C-alpha cells in the first residue's frame, strides 16, 4: 500500500531533489517572511524560473512545494515581530505573537511557532500519506458527472469558507472561470472571447495570469505602504533565542488538536490556511483559555494558528493529488504548474506517476525537517529579511516578473496582458476580493466545463446523469447544505428561544 512512499523516498533522496527541497525551504521561508509576499506570490514569481531550469516534473514540484510549506513557516515572522501578517494564513498569529514580542519574548515566540509549525505539518503529512491513497482509490470510480458535482461542491465550500464576503468570493470565482473560457473551445474549435487576437487563441496563459494577478498587483498595493515608517526599521529585541521544553510541553494539546483541525480544513477543497488559522484559534480559545489570557501573549494562542496553518498547507495536497481539485489558492497554482508539464493530477496519479505523487509526499517529510532545522537556530537571521526596504523589494519583484514572463513568451503582448491583469487584480483587492477564488476558478473552470460536457455527451444530453450516482448525489447535497446552512442555522437558533417562551 505504501509502495508509492518507498518509491517516493527513492526520488526525493537523490542529491538534486534533496538540494531542491532545501532550496525551496530556504526560499519559501524568506518569501514568507517578507511582508505582503505569501506562498502564492512566492510561487507565482519563482514558477516560470523553475520551469525554465528544465527540471523534471517531480523535481519542479518538490521545489515549489518546498516554497509553499516554507512560506507558511516564514509568514509568522512579520506577524510576531511587526504585527503585520506575512501572508493570509498568519493573520491570527499576530493576536498572541505580537504581544509576546512586546513582552521581550520575541525569540521564544519564534522558536515556539517553529515547533508548532513542525508538529502541525508533521500531523498533516502523516494524514496525507494515509488518506491520499485511500481517497485515490475512491476517486478512480469518479466519472465526468461525479467530477462535475465535486467541482460544484468545491466552489460552494469555497464561497462559504473563504474570505469575509461570500458574494465577493463567488463573484471572484465566476470571473476566474470566465477568464478560463477565453480561447479556442476544445470541444468544437470555436473561438471564444478572443476578439480576433491570435495571441488569445490558446487562452490566457497560466504564467501571465498568476504573475499579473499576484506579483504585479502586489507591487501596486505596496505603493500604498511605501511611506509607512513603522514597518521598515524597528524590530523588537529577540530576547533569548530558544524556547524552553517546558513552554513547548505546555502547548502540546493545543498543537495536536490544531494540527488535526488544520489538516481537515486543508483537505476541504477551496479552504486554505487563513480559515484553518481562524478556526483553530477560536476553538482553542473556547477550550483552554480559562483565564482570558488569549490575545495578551498566550503561548497557546500562538501555537494554535501556527500548527493549523502549516497543517492545512499539507492537507490541501490531498484533494490536489487525488482528485485534481486544489485545496487552496496556492495548490491551484501548483496544479497549474503541473499542467505545464502535461501532468493532470487526479486519481490515476498514484498509479501512473507514482514518482511525482510519492516524491512530493516524501519531500514534504524531508522539507519539514529542514524547515525546523533552519527556523529554530536561524530565526534571528530570517528576521533581518523584514528590514529589507520596499525600494529594493519592489524592483526585484518587477524584474523577476518580467524575466519570468519574457522567458516563456518573447513577445510584448504577453507583458501587456500581464500588466492589465495586474491592474485588474489590484482593483479586485482594493474592492475587498480575495484572489484565491479567482485563481481557483481559472484553474478549475476549464475542467468543470469539460466534465460537464463529457457527462452530457455520454447521456446524449440528458441532464439527470449529473445526479444519478450515489457519489454525485451526495456531493450535490453537501454543496447545497454548505450554501444554505449558514443562513438557515442562525434563523432556526433565533426562532427556538422565542418558541419556548
Amino acid at each position, binding site marked *: 500500500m505504501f509502495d508509492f512512499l518507498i518509491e517516493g523516498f527513492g526520488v526525493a533522496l537523490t542529491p538534486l531533489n534533496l538540494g531542491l527541497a532545501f532550496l525551496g525551504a530556504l526560499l519559501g521561508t524568506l518569501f514568507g517572511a517578507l511582508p505582503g509576499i505569501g506562498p502564492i506570490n512566492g510561487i507565482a514569481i519563482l514558477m516560470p524560473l523553475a520551469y525554465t531550469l528544465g527540471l523534471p516534473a517531480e523535481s519542479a514540484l518538490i521545489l515549489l512545494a518546498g516554497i509553499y510549506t516554507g512560506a507558511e513557516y516564514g509568514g509568522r515572522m512579520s506577524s510576531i515581530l511587526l504585527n503585520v501578517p506575512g501572508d493570509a494564513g498568519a493573520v491570527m498569529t499576530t493576536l498572541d505573537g505580537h504581544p509576546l514580542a512586546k513582552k521581550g519574548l520575541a525569540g521564544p515566540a519564534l522558536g515556539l511557532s517553529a515547533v508548532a509549525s513542525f508538529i502541525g505539518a508533521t500531523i498533516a503529512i502523516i494524514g496525507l500519506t494515509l488518506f491520499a491513497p485511500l481517497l485515490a482509490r475512491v476517486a478512480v470510480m469518479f466519472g465526468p458527472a461525479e467530477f462535475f458535482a465535486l467541482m460544484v461542491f468545491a466552489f460552494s465550500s469555497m464561497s462559504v469558507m473563504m474570505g469575509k464576503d461570500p458574494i465577493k468570493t463567488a463573484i471572484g470565482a465566476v470571473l476566474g472561470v470566465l477568464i478560463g473560457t477565453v480561447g479556442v473551445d476544445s470541444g468544437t474549435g470555436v473561438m471564444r472571447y478572443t476578439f480576433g487576437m491570435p495571441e488569445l487563441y490558446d487562452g490566457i496563459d497560466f504564467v501571465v495570469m498568476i504573475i499579473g494577478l499576484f506579483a504585479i498587483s502586489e507591487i501596486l498595493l505596496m505603493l500604498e505602504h511605501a511611506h509607512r515608517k513603522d514597518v521598515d526599521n524597528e524590530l523588537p529585541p529577540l530576547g533569548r533565542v530558544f524556547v524552553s521544553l517546558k513552554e513547548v510541553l505546555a502547548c502540546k494539546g493545543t498543537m495536536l488538536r490544531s494540527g488535526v483541525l488544520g489538516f481537515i480544513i486543508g483537505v476541504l477543497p477551496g479552504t486554505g490556511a487563513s480559515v484553518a488559522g481562524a478556526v483553530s484559534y477560536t476553538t482553542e480559545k473556547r477550550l483552554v483559555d480559562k483565564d482570558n489570557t488569549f490575545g495578551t501573549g498566550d503561548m497557546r494562542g500562538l501555537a494554535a494558528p501556527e500548527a493549523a496553518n502549516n497543517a492545512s498547507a499539507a492537507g490541501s495536497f490531498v484533494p490536489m493529488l487525488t482528485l485534481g481539485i486544489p485545496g487552496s489558492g496556492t495548490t491551484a497554482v501548483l496544479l497549474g504548474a503541473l499542467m505545464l508539464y502535461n501532468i493532470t493530477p487526479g486519481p490515476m496519479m498514484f498509479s501512473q506517476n507514482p514518482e511525482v505523487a510519492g516524491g512530493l509526499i516524501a519531500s514534504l517529510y524531508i522539507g519539514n525537517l529542514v524547515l525546523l532545522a533552519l527556523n529554530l537556530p536561524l530565526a534571528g537571521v530570517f528576521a533581518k529579511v523584514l528590514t529589507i526596504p520596499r525600494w529594493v523589494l519592489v524592483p526585484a519583484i518587477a*524584474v523577476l516578473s518580467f524575466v519570468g514572463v519574457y522567458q516563456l513568451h518573447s513577445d510584448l503582448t504577453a507583458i501587456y496582458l500581464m500588466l492589465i491583469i495586474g491592474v485588474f487584480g489590484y482593483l479586485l483587492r482594493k474592492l475587498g476580493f480575495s484572489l484565491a477564488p479567482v485563481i481557483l476558478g481559472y484553474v478549475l473552470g476549464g475542467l468543470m466545463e469539460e466534465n460537464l460536457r463529457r457527462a452530457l455527451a455520454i447521456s446524449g444530453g440528458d441532464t439527470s446523469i449529473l445526479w444519478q450516482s450515489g457519489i454525485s448525489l451526495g456531493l450535490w447535497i453537501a454543496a447545497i447544505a454548505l450554501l444554505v446552512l449558514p443562513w438557515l442555522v442562525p434563523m432556526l437558533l433565533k426562532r427556538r428561544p422565542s418558541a419556548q417562551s
Partner: protein
Amino acid sequence: MSLAADRCLGIALMGLAAFTAVNALSLEVPFSYDPVGPKAFPLGLSILLGLLSVVLVIRPGENGHWPDKRLALRLIGVLALLLVYALLFPRLGFAISSMLVIAALARLFEASWPKAIATGVLMAFGGQWLFTHGLGITLPGLPW
C-alpha cells in the same frame, strides 16, 4: 456615497455579464456531436454573474480606502514605468533597461537618489549575471 465602490462594481459586472451572454449567443457552432456546445457554459456563468452583481448592488459592502490624488499619480507612475520597461526590455537589453527602471521604481518607493542609483546598477548587473550564469536564461543582450 460611502457605499459607491461596490455599487459601481456591481453595475460594471452586470455589463460584463450582459456582454458575455451576448457574445456567447453569437458563437457560430458548426455541426458537432457535443450536445452542450460552447455556448451553454459561458451563458450559465453570465446568468450567475448577473444574479451575484444584483445582490452586490442591493447589499454593497464597505467602501474601503481608496488612494488619494497623490497616491493615484504614483500608481499611474509605477504602471507607466512598467510599460516603459516592457518597451525598452527587448530594445535596450536586460541590463540597461533594468538599471533605468529599477532606479526609477526605487525613487517612486521613496529611496534617495544615491540609493536608487546604486540599487539599479547592482540589481541590474547582478541579475544579469545570475540569470545567465546561474539559471542559464538567455536575456535580450546589449543593443550594440
